């Protein structure tokens, strides 16, 4: 258990994080597009994709919320060693990690304010699976429409209605990830 915290980081941080970020950027710029990443491993049940996102985007400057289910001593140790992000309550988090049920209710998270809509949380959602079926997405980054297996629809419509405020999401399953920014219109299939 002691050594588990020390493994699973990037072998070559500048290169691995560059690849991780490009995947995260492509996903955010093209909502619904599923990217594959590798290079990071966090203690179970955290997926490899979520581990890569944490290693790429989080550090001592980003308050992180670990939802029940991923908030284990092993994960806290791993995060302390590899990321150093202060662990905080949901209300103060810039990044949050957990499965969909554990992250609810989403009203807890920061959505930014009118002058600084960027001061909002990014939620990294652990999913059992990820596929291009399900909810229909349209908006910036999507030529016509895209599809993504979102956990539900209504909550993302409400999030879109807050634009330019709102939450941004990454969905992770294994080594695959996709994103849903606040700008995307979501409709039931």
């Amino acid at each position: 258990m002691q050594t588990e915290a020390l493994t699973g980081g990037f072998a070559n941080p500048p290169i691995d994080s560059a690849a991780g970020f490009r995947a995260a950027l492509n996903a955010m710029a093209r909502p619904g597009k599923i990217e594959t990443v590798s290079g990071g491993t966090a203690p179970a049940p955290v997926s490899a994709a979520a581990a890569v996102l944490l290693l790429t985007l989080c550090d001592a400057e980003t308050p992180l919320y670990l939802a029940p289910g991923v908030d284990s001593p092993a994960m806290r140790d791993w995060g302390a060693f590899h990321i150093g992000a202060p662990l905080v309550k949901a209300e103060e988090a810039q990044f949050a990690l957990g499965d969909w049920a554990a992250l609810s209710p989403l009203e807890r998270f920061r959505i930014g304010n009118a002058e600084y809509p960027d001061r909002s949380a990014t939620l990294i959602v652990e999913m059992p699976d990820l596929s291009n079926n399900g909810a229909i997405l349209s908006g910036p980054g999507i030529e016509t429409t895209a599809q993504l297996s979102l956990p539900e629809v209504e909550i993302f419509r409400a999030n879109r209605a807050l634009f330019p405020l709102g939450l941004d999401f990454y969905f992770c399953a294994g080594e695959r990830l996709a994103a849903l920014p606040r700008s995307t219109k979501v409709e039931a299939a």
Partner: protein
Amino acid sequence: MTEERPGVETDAYNFAYLDEQTKRMIRRAILKGVAIPGYQVPFASREMPMPYGWGTGGVQVTAACLTPEDRLKVIDQGADDTTNAVSIRKFFERTAGVETTEHTTEATVIQTRHRIPETPMTEDQILVYQVPIPEPLRFLEPRETETRKMHGLEEYGLMHVKLYEDIARHGEIATAYAYPVKVEGRYVMDPSPIPKFDNPRLESPALQLFGAGREQRIYAVPPYSKVVSLDFEDHPFDPSKADHPCALCGAENTYLDEVIMDDAGGRMFVCSDTDYCATRQAEGHRGAQSAPFTEAAE
């Protein structure tokens, strides 16, 4: 661990020059920018080994986006061979060890100063703009606290008044570059000082990122975003261009630079995009003053 390439000092620098914590900070700003199209995200711009005004914002965005597999193109007013473009290209050859190219079609990341390449961009490309003044309302309202409120309240009346005053004075909207646009029906954005001729191509399959180093702002236009140049019903937006074909390649549909040839009024118009012009010439297109013709005349 870094791959060795002859002539590349990758050992002397962290990959792409910036330290990892700085890159994470820039990357977070880029992602929020992409999530809120047209909104200017503040970021902690670093000093770069080049002066402000030479593309430090674009360089930082490019550094945060590059991967070793990328092929980088840098243009300055459309040209690959000007000082700014050459030195930024060399900077990344040296600090990131990435391949560089002058061909738009071969590039995966293109950093640009004040032009959009004539060759249509693709989904696999990222266009990084160097931005001097990111705030479109800055010359109308100097206070950042006020412009931030105006963006928050979507209060863009002042910009329309400015365009209207143009019409009242000059009979047309006289803004020829950095022509303001509205992104996805929400934020008014400065597209950087690109000629308004380029504005229609802001709606692109490529991801477009904007970096302003001195002003410490990053913003983005995701692929296929709606980008509308501000205008009036009775004075619709007009992406004007000089009424000439390119003197070297004969292209009729490109943005042209006017080159003064002598002190007797002699001038020629050539494509501002050097790669596009050279590619057309290599394909056999000729303009009125291209080399073989002038040689034959002498």
